[in-house]
């Protein structure tokens, strides 16, 4: 049994969720990885260093430059005959591409697995994480996306796999990349951060998120938000932690002005330590928080910022 993992990267480096997908694949058998893009030599070399990877397939062509699903899916289908399992992290990219691959192979994809039971059987959360389904695939080939928080990422260094080029393919150009507006931030990405501080509807406005920024800077934390804060237009959607946003499990998660809707808890309840700051002592977030502070966030946040200042 050999598994092929499509590695999510930004053109420079491998994203952390991709290393979790490699970890999941290692529970299934030998692991090959696919790096696709344009000018991805450095990423392929980084992939070759992932421990436990037996082979890197590098698909370096303009068609893959922007990670469009249509050419990427065709590439994975072309490589599929050599593999029993095709995997990717359940990131925006993996979720976009893998179901397309599955349909082309006449396979029902297994989305967002949080555990591997055996080569055919997996655990996946359903109903926003309110239930866990153990599912057995009857398909000969499995197409899987991996919930990164379910698997400790493999280390970035330690291996030395050979790099082979992917076969050249031509895909009809039915989709075109136009532009990207990516948030520029010096802070860690939500899915890779050790500490996250998130704001909810209680923040009252987008401007007030600077109160969180000040604390995030001191803790080297990422800043997130609840769906309510995104819906209210306080911050962009890529801040969203929850069932329909990013699933995170940092060492420390600080929820500020977040009531704790099921859909938010689904995205952060596997965090190691959870802190809730909310003025409503009945807020459901306190039922899962390790440390709860009932307080007006507009008083508590400046105090917290100052306390961290005097500590450091």
């Amino acid at each position: 049994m050999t598994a092929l993992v499509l590695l999510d990267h930004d053109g420079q480096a491998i994203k952390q969720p991709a290393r979790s997908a490699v970890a999941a694949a290692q529970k299934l058998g030998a692991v090959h990885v696919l790096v696709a893009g344009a000018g991805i030599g450095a990423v392929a070399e980084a992939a070759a260093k992932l421990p436990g990877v037996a082979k890197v397939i590098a698909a370096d062509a303009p068609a893959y430059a922007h990670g469009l699903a249509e050419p990427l899916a065709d590439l994975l289908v072309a490589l599929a005959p050599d593999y029993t399992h095709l995997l990717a992290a359940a990131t925006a990219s993996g979720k976009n591409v893998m179901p397309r691959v599955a349909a082309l192979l006449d396979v029902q994809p297994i989305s967002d697995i949080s555990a591997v039971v055996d080569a055919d059987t997996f655990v996946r959360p359903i109903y926003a994480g309110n239930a866990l389904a153990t599912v057995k695939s009857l398909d000969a080939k499995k197409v899987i996306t991996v919930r990164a928080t379910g698997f400790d990422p493999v280390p970035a260094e330690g291996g030395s796999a050979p790099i082979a080029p992917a076969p050249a393919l031509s895909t009809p150009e039915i989709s075109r990349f136009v532009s990207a507006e990516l948030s520029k931030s010096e802070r860690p990405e939500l899915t890779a951060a050790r500490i996250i501080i998130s704001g909810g509807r209680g923040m009252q406005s987008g401007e007030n998120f600077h109160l969180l920024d000040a604390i995030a800077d001191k803790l080297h934390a990422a800043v997130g938000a609840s769906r309510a804060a995104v819906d209210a237009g306080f911050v962009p959607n890529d801040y969203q932690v929850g069932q329909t946003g990013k699933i995170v499990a940092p060492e420390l998660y600080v929820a500020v002005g977040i009531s704790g809707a099921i859909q938010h808890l689904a995205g952060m309840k596997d965090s190691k330590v959870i802190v809730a700051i909310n003025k409503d002592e009945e807020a459901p977030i306190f039922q899962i928080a390790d440390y709860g502070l009932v307080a007006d966030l507009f008083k508590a946040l400046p105090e917290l910022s100052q306390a961290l200042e005097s500590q450091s």
Partner: protein
Amino acid sequence: MKLLVPVKRVVDYNVKVRVRSDGGGVETAGVKMSMNPFDEIAVEEAVRLKEKGIAEEIVAVSMGIAACAETIRTALAMGADRGILVETDAELQPLAVAKLLKAIVAKEDPQLVILGKQAIDDDMNATGQMLAALLGWPQGTFASRLLIEDGRCVVTREVDGGLETVSLALPAIVTTDLRLNEPRYASLPNIMKARKKPIETLTPAALGVDPAPRLQVLKTTEPPRRQAGVKVGSVAELVDKLKNEAKVI
């Protein structure tokens, strides 16, 4: 152009779901059912395209037991023109749904299919991408903006680091994300009017599709529960606990 909008009947998003004690799934008996919220966004977007004069007709499709007709009625009340119900008692998984939708696309010939990005019951996030694959059409998933320009569909997508815009040849598939629009509430007159709009009933057999599930659910369990911790009295106490007890800062 003609638009096709698939809508799924799911447990209402406000319902706290319970795992059945026999491990055989989630309790759905006597539970409020509604249209999947992402599908409401899909219907709304279709209705807006019609209001702008870009679309002429909107066909809402649902699949499953007879009660799925109610979900189609909701779409009709929001502004869809007619409905198609693929009636079956079989459990339908995304691959089967995509194949059934492909058969309906062959029959209806829409230029654009707008779907919710995921259903809030099985959280698969797959059907739109799979339908696109089966049809050989391009896909604009997780859309926060949709424009029809120069015979193409321009979709701004919610991606991990921000937004990305792609231009798709028509016909195309779009799946909706949260910020695409805010769905309307159907007015009473429109709910009344929707009762008179036609719904055609088909079966998987009539569409030539074997809907047999490929994923067998062996068991469904409750996730491990987190225990509530302690309340702290002040910011100073919180910082002390995080530093000296939890040791995370």
